[in-house]
Structure formats: C-alpha cells, structure tokens
C-alpha cells in the first residue's frame, strides 16, 4: 500500500511536469528541453526556504513559482525570438547552465552533497499531491480553452499568418514559457518536500528528456495525454525493480528505455497515444 501511494505521488508530480511542458511543446509548438531547470528551481526554493529559513511549505511553493517564472521570463526574452531547432538548442543550453549553477553554487545549494531533511506539510502527502495535480490540470484546461490558448495553437500552426493579424507572437511565446515554468516549479516543491532530500543530479538534462518523453508518449496538445504518459513511463520501468538489477544499472536501464521510446515513437507514431498535434 505504501508503495502504491508512493507511485501515485510520483505520477502526480510527473503529470504536473508533463502538463506544464505540454503547454509549450504541444500547444505552442516550441521544442523546449529545459523543463528540468524550472523543476529544479522550484525544488531548491522549497528546500532552501524550508530548511534554512523555516518558511512554511505553501509559502515556499509560491516563492519557488515566482522565482522560476522570473528565470523563465529572463531567458524567454531571448528564447522567444527563436523557433524550431534553435529554440531546442538554446533551451537545452539553459538546462545545462542551471544544472551547473545547482552543482557549483555551493554556498547556497551545498553542491553535489545535496540538501537533506526537507520537512513535509501537515496533511497526508498523497492529498497534497493530488490536489496540486487537480489544480494544475484545471488551470491548464482553462488556459487552453481560452482565447489565449487558441492564439497559442494558431502560433503553432502558422506564426507568420497570425502576426499578420496583428498578434505580437513573441509576447505570447514569452507568456506561455513563463507560466509553464511556474507550474513546473510546483512539481519541484512537491518533489523536494516528498523525498525530503534533493541533489543536482535529479535536475540534469536527462530529466528534461524524460519529461519530454512523457508528453510525446502520451500525446502532444492533449492534457489527458500528459497524465497518461506520466502513468505509463513511471510504471513501465518500475517493472525493472523486480528484475533485480543493481540500482546504478537500473537507472541507466530507465534512460535506455526512454531513449528507445523516443526513437520508436518518432518512427511509428509521432503523435503519441492520444495526441492531436504531430511534430
């Protein structure tokens, strides 16, 4: 039972990450590979504020969201000028930079040692995680059904055309990137508080690739797809746990599977399980 609850919490956290990334990749058609960076900013905000300053979990979560949104806004100012391959490359670079900040700003993050002893909020964590997922899900649904969401999809289909109608497309790209980062930070705060220990290795580029695999597998531009993707991709490698590989090999095995899934999907089903948009 404990194990089942653990899985549901993990799936909730990764569903939030998937939903947030889907707004950028699925709905707006921008290939961002930087989600783990904002996930990490949320996690470190909660870890540092809770252990160092004794701030309450919910406040640290909000501050983490603001911090991630601020970082995304600054990067997005530059990033929103690009599209396609260059967008992917620069966002990937941003992830590499943030990772090295986590690793090397030792006075703040304790570097590779990580931050232990992060407390949990009072109610059962399962409820907190599910409530967060529900809030994020309905917020995303509201967003994509609004006129703002329709503009995003129009940018994805034909940016030039929508510019002719007078839309400042880079403002929209910047806005959705910032919103997406704030939502990813929610997942980061949950993760830090749930696992009670974080170190930089969780927020490397591999993690961004994993989140990316979740939304591609579940389906781009479909919110249920992101939850479905998280469900499958968390449960699938859990099977490896029972095969009995040593932990180091099992971690690499997971990466191998995610890589192969990305290749297989691109070859045979680029829209994923229930996606509405093909890359």
């Amino acid at each position, binding site marked *: 039972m404990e194990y089942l609850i653990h899985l549901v919490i993990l799936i909730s956290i990764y569903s939030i990450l998937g939903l947030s990334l889907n707004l950028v990749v699925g709905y707006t058609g921008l290939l961002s590979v930087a989600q783990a960076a904002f996930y990490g900013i949320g996690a470190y905000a909660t870890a540092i504020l809770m252990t160092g300053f004794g701030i309450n979990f919910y406040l640290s979560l909000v501050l983490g969201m603001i911090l991630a949104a601020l970082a995304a806004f600054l990067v997005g100012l530059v990033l929103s000028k690009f599209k396609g391959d260059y967008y992917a490359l620069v966002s990937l670079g941003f992830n590499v930079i943030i990772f090295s900040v986590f690793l090397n700003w030792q006075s703040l993050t304790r570097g590779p040692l990580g931050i232990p002893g992060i407390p949990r909020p009072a109610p059962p964590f399962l409820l907190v995680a599910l409530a967060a997922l529900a809030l994020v899900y309905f917020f995303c649904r509201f967003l994509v059904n609004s006129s703002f969401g329709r503009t995003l999809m129009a940018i994805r289909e034909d940016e030039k055309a929508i510019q002719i109608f007078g839309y400042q497309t880079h403002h929209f790209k910047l806005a959705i990137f910032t919103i997406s980062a704030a939502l990813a930070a929610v997942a980061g705060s949950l993760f830090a508080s749930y696992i009670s220990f974080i170190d930089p290795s969780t927020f490397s580029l591999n993690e961004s690739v994993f989140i990316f695999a979740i939304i591609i597998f579940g389906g781009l531009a479909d919110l249920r797809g992101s939850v479905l993707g998280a469900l499958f991709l968390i449960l699938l490698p859990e099977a490896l746990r029972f095969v009995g590989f040593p932990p180091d090999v099992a971690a690499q095995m997971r990466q191998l599977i995610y*890589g192969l899934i990305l290749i297989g999907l691109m070859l045979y089903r680029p829209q994923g399980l229930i996606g509405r948009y093909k890359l």
Partner: protein
Amino acid sequence: MEIVPQLVANSIIAGSIYSLVALGFNLVYGVTKFFNLAHGALAVVGGYTTFYFLKYLHLNLYLAVVLGVLVAGLVGYLLDKFIYLPLRQRKASGMVLLVASLGVFTAIQALLAILFSSQFQTLSLYIGPQRIFDLFGGIITQTQLIILVSVLLITILLSWILNQTMFGKAVKAISDDEEVAKIVGINTNKIIGYVFFIGSAVAGLAGILVGFDTGIEPTMGMFLLLGGVIGAIVGGIGNIYGGVLGSFLLGFVENFGIWQISGEWKAAIAFILLTLFLIFRPEGIMKK
C-alpha cells in the same frame, strides 16, 4: 609557466577538439538539414571502442585507434540507415528528426554506462609517459600536439574531398538542393549514408583524442556536442571552414572567460556567445 601563453595553448586545444566535432556535424547538417544531437554520442562510442580494444583485447595502439574511428563511423552509418533515412523518406519534419536524435543520444549514453560503468576512464595509461612541448611559454603535451595536427590534416582532407572529387560534388549538390540532385541522377540516400559515416568517424576521432588527453566518461558526449554545435553555428552552419573558425573562437572565449571567474561557468560563457551570435549575426561568421 606564464598565464597568457598557457591560456592561448589551452584555447587552441579546446578549439581543435570542438573543430573535429563541428566538422562532422556540419557535413551531416549540410546534407540533411537537421540538428543531429546523436553526433556527440558517436564521439563517446569512438572513445569507448578504443578503450575496449586497448584494455580488454590488448590490441596495438594504432589499430585500436583506427578501429575506434571505424566503429564510430559505422554506428553513424547504421543510425542513418535504420532511423534517419526512414524518417526522411516519410518527409518527417526537422523537429521529428531532432527528437529522434535526442532519443538516440540518450539511449547510446545509457548503453555505454551499462556496459562500461559511469566511471571516468583514462586512455593515456596505455601510451606511457608523454613528451611535453614548450610553445612560447605555454605547455602542451604530445597528445595535444597530435590533436592539433589531426584537425589541420582532416580539414585539408575534407576540403580536398569536397572540392576535387565526384563524391564531394555530389555532397555539395545535395546540400544546395536535394530534390534537384536527385533529378540529375545522384543517388542521394547512398551519398548521405557515406556522409554520416565520414562525419561520425571524425566525431569518433574527437572522442578518442579527448580520451588520451583527459579521459572518457559516458556523459562527455553532451559537452563535446555543445562545443561542436556552438562552434558550427557561430562559424556559419553548413560551412566546414566556418565551423573550424567558430570552434577556435569558442575555445578562446571559453578559456579567457574563465581566467577571472571560476571554471564551472564555461558552459554559461559558451551559451552567452551562442546567444549573442544568434541575436546579432544569426548566419555566423562565414555566411554559406
């Protein structure tokens, strides 16, 4: 040891390594027009193949290096044949190819870590003590001199192939317009396959040389890839001389950048250079 000459020497070595990656990346980008992120992983494949032959089969040094280069080339060729070619034939967008190559990168990196563990390995154990050269006050090792010479030789060789042979003309034709190249009777898929072989083999050599200079680990592909790709973009994507020029510029900016601030900021410096170029001169130093 003087600081400035040493920084110059370090910059030249870093630039040489990035150049090797950028050369192959540019060749492949020229004919396929997509960002092959798996290119960095092929460098790691080269390094580990040589490591395997040296450590477990005790092969002769030169043979092990040649085999490492060939295996990297072969893996690149097979990736094209079984993954990229089917996607191209389906007219998949550049984004699909990019995501597929991200998958390839992740899978190869994980596979190498499973086979050889994620530990850092040094290849220089197998070549004994190295001679050291003094270059106007900066110190470089024998391996680093070989790296520099290889870059010069390979750049000359590639430019000869591209400009003087029928194969090179076919490559140029495909880079300009694949459809037209097909119409005039060039077997484009075959040529692109060969380009993948050559580009990946050069990347493999980069991985092997890094292995002798410092060492190899499964995750080094990303650092090599980013250096090479940034070099290629800064220099002018698709232009092989531009790639070399851009890579050396990157080498210098990185190494002089960390003169005053700490070395961990190398990646950040590299990306600031890239971003500045993308904003102010997106076509790179040498426009194609």
